[in-house]
């Protein structure tokens, strides 16, 4: 019975949201907006559960003394300090201390974490960029053109290799233009092929969820 009710909610909600896109009825549009707002309200409660799990895990680590106590304590304290500062400053939308922490700590530190990948990609390039066969050579040439075309060296090479033929002038090594062509023409074709595949997969998965074929989430 419980399963039946849950699947019924998915079926009704899914069919309504799918159909309202094609039926331009004002009442359905209002309901659509209401459902979207309801979805946001419900997800806030899910967020509480997520935060509870995060803190519970840290507390478990402290109890089990698996590693240094400083690590779980750091997460709890940093989380708590931000929340407390937000509450002290009146729990407003634009809380100055929260914005300060965001711009001073979160933005540069997250950028640093993502920039770590630059080193790993460089290391991976050293191993992958080898013209072992035809396919690897194509990959190497394309990636090299894109990299050179995106740095000042590409512009410089384009400038110094300009030649004049009659009234027309063109560059022999116009890397920036080559990059634009690669990104806008063959790359678009490949991306579109991927997009078709991914979209068909998403739509079929959505149908499977709506019609109760996919029920793993109920376990």
């Amino acid at each position, binding site marked *: 019975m419980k399963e039946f009710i849950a699947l019924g909610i998915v079926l009704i909600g899914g069919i309504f949201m799918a159909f309202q896109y094609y039926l331009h009825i004002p009442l359905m549009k209002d309901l659509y907006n209401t459902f979207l707002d309801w979805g946001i309200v419900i997800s806030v*409660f899910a*967020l509480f559960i997520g935060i509870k799990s995060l803190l519970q895990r840290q507390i478990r680590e402290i109890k089990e003394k698996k590693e240094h106590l400083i690590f779980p304590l750091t997460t709890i304290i940093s989380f708590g300090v*931000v929340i407390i500062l937000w509450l002290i400053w009146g729990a407003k939308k634009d809380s100055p201390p929260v914005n300060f922490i965001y711009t001073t700590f979160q933005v540069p*530190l997250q950028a640093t974490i*993502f920039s770590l990948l*630059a080193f790993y990609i460089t290391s991976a390039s050293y191993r992958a960029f080898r013209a072992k066969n035809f396919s690897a050579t*194509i990959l190497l040439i394309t990636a090299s053109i894109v990299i050179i075309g995106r740095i000042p060296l590409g512009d410089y090479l384009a400038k110094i290799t300009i030649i004049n033929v009659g009234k027309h002038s063109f560059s022999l090594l116009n890397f920036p233009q080559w990059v634009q062509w690669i990104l806008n*023409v063959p790359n678009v*074709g490949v991306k579109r092929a991927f997009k078709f595949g991914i979209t068909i997969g998403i739509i079929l998965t959505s149908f499977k969820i709506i019609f109760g074929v996919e029920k793993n989430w109920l376990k």
Partner: protein
Amino acid sequence: MLINLIVLFLILSIYSFLYKDNVFFKFTERFVVGISAAYGFIKLFQRGFIDKLYIPLSHGNLAVIFPALLGLLFFGTLNKKTAFLAKFPLAFLLGIGAGLEIGPRIETDIVKQIYTTIIYSPHSPWFTIFNNIIIIIALFATMYYFLFVLRKNRPIDRIISKTGIFFLMVGFGASFGYTIMARISLLIEVIKTVIHFF
């Protein structure tokens, strides 16, 4: 100045991971997790709880009590006996999420993509027509390469598949080069931030 030194210390702690995993990196990682979780919580709380629940309720819109009650069922997971209650709000989110994907996806990712691939003006310049032909060849060759349900024994199949691989390599190379440049840009930004401290 003190805050700049703290941020500098945290940035260097993250880069210390390049040598090996260590306590400084772990400390900074946990710190980022804590502040990111708090920031995400505050933003969603404002957007969901205050804007969509508290304000409508204070204006007399009692309909929002329904999603609030449905959301409260998530707390059923706190007890094993009532854990099944969390499936109902989840069902609502899954249902509307799955339904929302169908219509716009078909229109923007399939119909419009096919339209922009095959429709072009006959008065277009020759290079636009040439580029369109390349896009069509790349699209069909790539899709054909991934069509595993067909037996590809004929020479023409091999030619199309090889063309597909060629365009795939061009696409992967472009994406790879682009990603490298994006990450290097981030690295440069971080270095600029550090230089700015002094």
